[in-house]
């Protein structure tokens, strides 16, 4: 089945600035991604795995345009790509109520003007989708548990009905039962709303559970790409083997 590509990345290189050692020193930059090429197909969940510091988040940030110093090609089918961050404790503004946080993406929407009534309706719709009671709208993030906060973060990302969501380690900061609930929510969004998800994680088991494709990264390069079942059964790359052994899968 030939599917359409929503994100097409060709030979992407990302640089980070390195601080000068002294004021007369040369400005240097550090290459974090060394030519990454990857496709994300419409309606799938792509898992991106790899050790800490291998450039997973850098790739995600490059896709949404938060990294400016890049070379290579990024083709996006939909311009509105939203992101869910790892730490639900710092990704929600602590001085705002949940209702305000959910409404904010609509308030700053440049595409169209939302009337207050439309915003309220949309908020209620999303609250239903993320499975939180509407009494929570009046609460502050500090009054919510980690899992509830992560649901709100996902809700904020969903507000403008994006077609693609990048989830940067969305379950790493949560305990196992809550992890399962959040994964279920992501799968449900993928199935019901047809949202493409780029799922970043260092947990190979989680990726096996929910992803259609998996890409293994190391040192800013993609080492292996394929369907999780096949990759896990028959890893081609040494690093993948190592990773699978470390995770206790093989």
């Amino acid at each position, binding site marked *: 089945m030939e599917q359409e590509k929503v994100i097409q990345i060709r030979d992407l290189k990302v640089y980070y600035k390195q601080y000068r050692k002294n004021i007369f020193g040369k400005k240097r930059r550090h290459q974090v991604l060394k030519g990454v090429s990857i496709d994300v197909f419409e309606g799938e969940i792509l898992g991106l795995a790899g050790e800490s510091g291998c450039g997973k988040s850098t790739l995600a940030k490059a896709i949404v345009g938060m990294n400016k110093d890049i070379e290579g090609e990024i083709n996006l089918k939909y311009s509105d790509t939203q992101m869910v961050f790892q730490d639900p404790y710092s*990704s929600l503004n602590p*001085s705002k109520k949940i209702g305000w946080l959910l409404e*904010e993406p609509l308030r700053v929407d440049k595409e169209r003007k939302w009337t207050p009534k439309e915003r309220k309706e949309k908020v209620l719709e999303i609250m239903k989708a993320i499975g939180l009671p509407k009494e929570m709208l009046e609460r502050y993030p500090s009054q919510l548990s980690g899992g509830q906060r992560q649901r709100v973060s996902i809700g904020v990302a969903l507000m403008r009905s994006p077609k693609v969501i990048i989830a940067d380690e969305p379950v790493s900061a949560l305990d196992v039962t809550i992890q399962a609930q959040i994964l279920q929510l992501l799968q449900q969004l993928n199935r019901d709303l047809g949202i493409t998800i780029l799922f970043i994680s260092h947990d190979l088991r989680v990726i096996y559970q929910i992803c259609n494709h998996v890409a293994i990264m190391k040192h800013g390069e993609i080492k292996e790409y394929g369907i999780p079942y096949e990759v896990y059964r028959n890893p081609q790359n040494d690093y993948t083997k190592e990773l699978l052994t470390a995770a206790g899968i093989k």
Partner: protein
Amino acid sequence: MKKFFSLFKKNKATGERNTFLLLGVIITGFILLMVIVGLFYTPYNPTKMDASAKLQGISFKHIMGTDNMGRDVFSRVMYGSRITVAIATFTILIGAGIGTIIGALTGYFGGIGDEITMRIIDAMLAFPSLLLSLVFVSLFGTGTYQVAIALGISFIPSFARIVRGEFLRCKNMDYVEVARLQGASNIRIIFVHILPNTVGVLLSSVMIGFNNAVLAEAGLSFLGIGAQPPHASLGKMLSDAQGYLFNRPSYVMSIGLVIVLMVLGFSFLGEGIKRIKN
């Protein structure tokens, strides 16, 4: 309103009472009441002299005694604390207002502009704020407004610093990135997303700043630079009274006491607010 009163009750979780807040509200409330009543009513005319009642002690007739020209000290305190409070408020409005904007912009955008502004502010902080305001007073001339503006300018650096620090802390938080991804403008991120998170710190430094402003105004008036007669500010009255420290101590002390109470009330209030936030 109910929420306001519940702040004074014992905290059920810790069993502690916010004593600072309670004392702060009571003392500050008392001072503000005095200022507000003083707008409409004073027991005596604060500028009316009475040669037959010079330098009297504390009595029912004059609860803080009378000064060297026979004026009722309590009436003058009611009248004078209004000017002191007004100068301090105006100073904080200028200092905190401009300081916050400078701190927010430099902290958020960073870069060469931040570097230059911060070096200027370092240079301003190197001088004692009283000395700095003396310089500004010598530029603007003396008088109530001039003093308020001079003090306000000399208060800008400390506020700019505090706010900048808070912005540096907040600007790399994920929620700022989220807001940026949603397409919020920089101005919106600064004032709508980040600024509310600095309110706690800002509020307690406003309270401390208010105290410093009251003291600085008293200091300037003491040097004869503040409010000019017939206007009376607390500092001015204190400097008038210092000559009678030994033959009529109650005169100096009652004025000093009001200044102390004013400063104490606001420090307690600031501390109390800090504890609510924690």
